[in-house]
């Protein structure tokens, strides 16, 4: 496995880093203070990221996207990960599951999402169905050429700025060898559909300025032409297209931890106590070493999963390993960074306390650390009848 970057890949990294430092980082403090990104700033970031080709870089070039594979997209996410997610996400990476669009859906949803005219969000979680996705209670009942949606979704990230949702709902039941299971179908639902309501979500300790919302569906009619993928096969589509989203979490954690370590090294090399640089005290220097060790390990695990995925060798286990290790690494690195900075680390004059808070959600969203460990251990035990 060779992770050396080609000249083009290095230029993609350099461009994204420049973009992050110039277009996003200068706004971090204000966004954190205000709790939102202004519409003007959203438009500006969107426009400039489209010009730079970073926007929708994961989508096929023949559809107007950047045509980057998993590995290159991971490099992009790693650079963007250094800044606040409230700013990062505006440089959109439309959900890969939109590649399942067909016929009229391509023109109505996929293409305008790639060009930035439309913004999607994704609704899976429910108050009573988190890790247990099949336990969802939001139902889709067939009625002629429509499906009628009823139920509630929550934790729906950036639904406030989206204009349609990729919704997963229970469309029936089936008998399996493990008992009765719900059949899940994916739908593309415009937010202006009657019976579809968005309400303010919860205040979250992580990613201030990046909002979640609650979606209520009350006899919301969705035409069958808006089914994404095959009817009752939403779970398969989600597994096919959403498995690699864990790479984004892992890459963001690596980018964020890199920045925290860089700040820590600079501080340890310049801050003096007891007449010498604090980096000369073993209590500090060994922290730096441990941060670097875990960061390197996380980066290599992330690049391994991306490298294989880009070559058509998607591995659920490698994705899970990258996600769980990188998110836990980032929690460790940002925490140690704060310890090195002492009291100042907890003050909002520095970005560290934000990074420390922001990364807490990374151990939970896109599959908790526990679910990732379940995936890893299941793969180990299955050949032995486990």
């Amino acid at each position: 496995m060779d992770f050396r970057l080609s000249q083009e890949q290095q230029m993609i990294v350099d461009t994204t880093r420049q973009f992050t430092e110039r277009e996003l980082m200068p706004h971090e403090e204000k966004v954190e203070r205000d709790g939102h990104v202004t519409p003007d700033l959203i438009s500006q970031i969107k426009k400039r990221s489209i010009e730079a080709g970073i926007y929708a870089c994961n989508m096929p070039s023949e559809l107007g996207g950047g045509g980057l594979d998993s590995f290159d997209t991971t490099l992009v996410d790693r650079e963007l990960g250094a800044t606040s997610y409230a700013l990062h996400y505006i440089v959109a990476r439309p959900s890969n599951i939109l590649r399942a669009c067909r016929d009229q859906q391509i023109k109505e949803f996929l293409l305008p999402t790639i060009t930035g005219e439309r913004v999607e969000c994704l609704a899976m979680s429910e108050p009573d169905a988190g890790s247990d996705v099949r336990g969802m209670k939001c139902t889709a009942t067939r009625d002629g050429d429509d499906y009628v949606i009823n139920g509630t979704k929550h934790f729906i990230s950036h639904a406030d700025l989206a204009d349609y949702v990729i919704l997963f709902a229970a469309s029936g039941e089936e008998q399996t060898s493990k008992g009765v299971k719900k059949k899940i179908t994916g739908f593309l639902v415009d937010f202006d559909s009657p019976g579809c309501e968005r309400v303010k979500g919860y205040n979250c300790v992580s990613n201030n300025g990046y909002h979640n919302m609650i979606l209520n569906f009350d006899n919301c009619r969705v035409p069958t032409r808006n089914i994404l993928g095959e009817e009752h096969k939403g779970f398969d589509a989600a597994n096919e297209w959403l498995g690699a989203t864990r790479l984004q979490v892992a890459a963001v954690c690596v980018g964020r931890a890199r920045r925290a370590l860089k700040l820590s090294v600079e501080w340890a090399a310049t801050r003096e106590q007891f007449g010498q640089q604090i980096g000369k005290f073993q209590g500090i220097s060994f922290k730096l070493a441990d941060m670097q060790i875990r960061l390197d390990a996380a980066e290599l695990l992330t690049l391994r999963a991306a490298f294989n995925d880009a070559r058509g060798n998607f591995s659920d286990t490698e994705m899970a390993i990258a996600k769980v290790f990188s998110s836990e690494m980032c929690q460790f690195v940002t925490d140690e960074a704060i310890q090195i900075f002492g009291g100042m680390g907890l003050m909002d004059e520095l970005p560290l306390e934000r990074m420390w808070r922001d990364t807490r959600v990374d151990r939970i969203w896109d599959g908790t650390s526990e679910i990732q460990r379940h995936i890893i251990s299941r793969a180990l035990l299955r050949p032995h009848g486990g």
Partner: protein
Amino acid sequence: MNIVVCVKQIPDPASPGALDASTHALKRDGKLILDESDAYGVEMALQLVASAGSGEVYVVSMAPNGETSGMRTALAMGAARGLLVSDPALAGSDALTTAKVLAAAVTKLGGADLIIAGTESSDGYTGTVPEQIAECLGLPSVTFAKKVKIDGQVLKVDRQSETGYDEVECSLPAVISVTAGVVEPRYPSFKGIMDAKKKPLDVVTAGDLAVTPTGWAAAGQKIVNVTQAEARKAGTVIEDDGEAFGKIVAFLENLKLI
């Protein structure tokens, strides 16, 4: 309208630089990037060609180690082709030799309606190469251009001065040096990066251009000594007692900033 932009590839300022102990020159053996001060020239050239409706932007550069990363950045921004003069014998070249090499490179590309350079590089700061290129090519030279317009065969430049700017005109072809901030350089787009791979980037030696390298020994300028920059002194703190604005105005006036 064909424009040649002279660009320098420099060590990444984000990485700690190192000086060669014997020559006192900056070590350039690692990865080189496009000097940010040249990104303005590339952007201006792209805009001028776009306004003209036809033509191409070419980039020329000189680097002893064959490095092309910085030039690829210029190609990814939109330049059509590049010519790199790379020759170990050019190590230690003084500003005049650099100008002769770049002038010869411009000639090899068939000349241009306009030649653009930065006012000075971010790593060497001699600030003389653009004018020397103009002299080598026998062309008019306009320095410190902050705004550039082309009207037929006439070049109209707002030239930055200490007190404001001069409005200068000359005929084309000409050589101009542009100041930082004159335009906002575009990011090399991802599509541009992929397209840059296919653009021609020729590498030639000093001999190919019939220029005789001077090297360290015969260079017309030498770095005789390097000393550590003086550490920045602590700033002045003005407590606002209701009259602080007057003290700030006086401070800025003393520095001739207002």
